[in-house]
Structures are given as structure tokens and as C-alpha cells.
């Protein structure tokens, strides 16, 4: 599975409801290699643009108009831990939990 294919895949929750699209993949070092820690999900064109600018990973702290717009757009983003993914796929990712159990993105990446 290529990372570029995973980005943009549709994500559905345990009940088969659409949660959003994969915007980013969070990785961490474990046992000397990288493993996927979780996925960042979002929806919409502005959200996609905000992630494309690095604002989704908290990597641009300004200028203020962009920061404020991005924070508002990204507020609806979600984080799903890799343990809660039941099926990995390049086009469709299925979760083993309900969408209400997911962490909002702003808790992960303060704007």
C-alpha cells in the first residue's frame, strides 16, 4: 500500500457510515522502525487545502488570517488511532469503532 494512495481514501466507521477522507498519516518510531500510529481525517475542499499547506500538522503559525481560517476549518477534523482500524486499504479504510468515539483533531494539534 502506497502512502500516496492511502491519503485521500474514504473512511467508514463500524456501522458503515462515512467518517471522512484520510488527510494525513501519523507515524512513530517503534522497535527501530516506523509504524503507523493513526490517521487524520477530514472533509471538504478547504480542509484539504489547509492540510496541503501544512496547517493541519500545526506547522504554520501564521500569518493570522490564514491561521484563523485554517483553525476554523480544521476544527471538524478527527484523529483515529491505528488500533481502531479494522481494514486497511488504498481506497477504503474501515474502522472498528463508532465515529463518535474519535478524537477531534484540535486536541492533537493545537492551532
Amino acid at each position, binding site marked *: *500500500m*502506497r*502512502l*500516496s494512495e*492511502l*491519503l485521500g481514501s474514504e473512511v467508514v466507521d463500524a456501522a458503515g457510515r462515512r467518517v471522512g477522507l484520510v488527510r*494525513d*498519516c*501519523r*507515524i*512513530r518510531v517503534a522497535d527501530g*522502525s*516506523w*509504524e*503507523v*500510529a*493513526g490517521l*487524520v481525517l477530514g472533509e471538504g475542499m478547504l480542509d484539504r487545502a489547509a*492540510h496541503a499547506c*501544512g496547517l*493541519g*500538522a500545526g*506547522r504554520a503559525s501564521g500569518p493570522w488570517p490564514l491561521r484563523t481560517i485554517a483553525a476554523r476549518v480544521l476544527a471538524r477534523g478527527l484523529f483515529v488511532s*491505528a*488500533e481502531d482500524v479494522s481494514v*486497511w*486499504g488504498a481506497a477504503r479504510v474501515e474502522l472498528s469503532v463508532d465515529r463518535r468515539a474519535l478524537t477531534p483533531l484540535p*486536541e*492533537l494539534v493545537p492551532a
Partner: protein
Amino acid sequence: MSEHVSARIALLDKQIVDRDRLAFGRVDDVELSIPTEGALPRVEALHTGAEALGDRLGGVLGRWIGAPARRLRSDGDAPPAIDPELVDQVDPFVKLRARFHELEGVAGFEHWLARNLVERLPGAGHAAE
């Protein structure tokens, strides 16, 4: 909560340099394993080169960018991929523990041009310093 980082920022599209800090490509894509029951996906390889880039861009332009590299590679060889074991550090660039000409199939065009064109020009062995 920052024990994990964004793969988009930390890996994807990053400059790759070899042991001698010689630049030769970018992380054009990242191969993830599809895990068996209970395990998590891992980074299996870093793809570099026009072929991976072309696949990622898609469309006519992507095919056009990837075509020369695909043709240059002999049949049966896998497209160039870098074992993550070779990665020394990822900031500010992805730095490898190896020299780039030791890597199989990486930057073939660079070698080809160096051999067939640039080294034949007079004075090619010296930097203008």
C-alpha cells in the same frame, strides 16, 4: 501528544541525501505494509525516482514523467526503493547511511548522464572554485 509525527511533513517529498550529503532524489512515495491481524502497518520502503513520482501524480503528465525512468530500468528489476533501515536521520533531510551509487537502481539517469555526457566535457572533474 507529539510522540507521533505527520508522515506528510516528516517523510513524504523530503530531500534525500547520502552519507556524504550528496543529494540525489526525494521521497517520492512511501510503501506501507498491510498488516496481519492485530499488528500495525509499518513503513516498508521509501520510493524515489521519476517512476514513483509519475505514479503518484497520475494522468497523462504522470505517465510522461515516469516513462523515461521505466524504460531505463531493465525488465524484471523492481523500481528503486530504499530500505528504511538505511535511514540515519530525517531532519532536516532524509540522510542515509550508504553512498548513493551503492544503492541498487537509484538515480540511474544521473549515472547514465555522468558517464555518457558530462564526464566527456573538458574540466568536468573540477568544481569551479
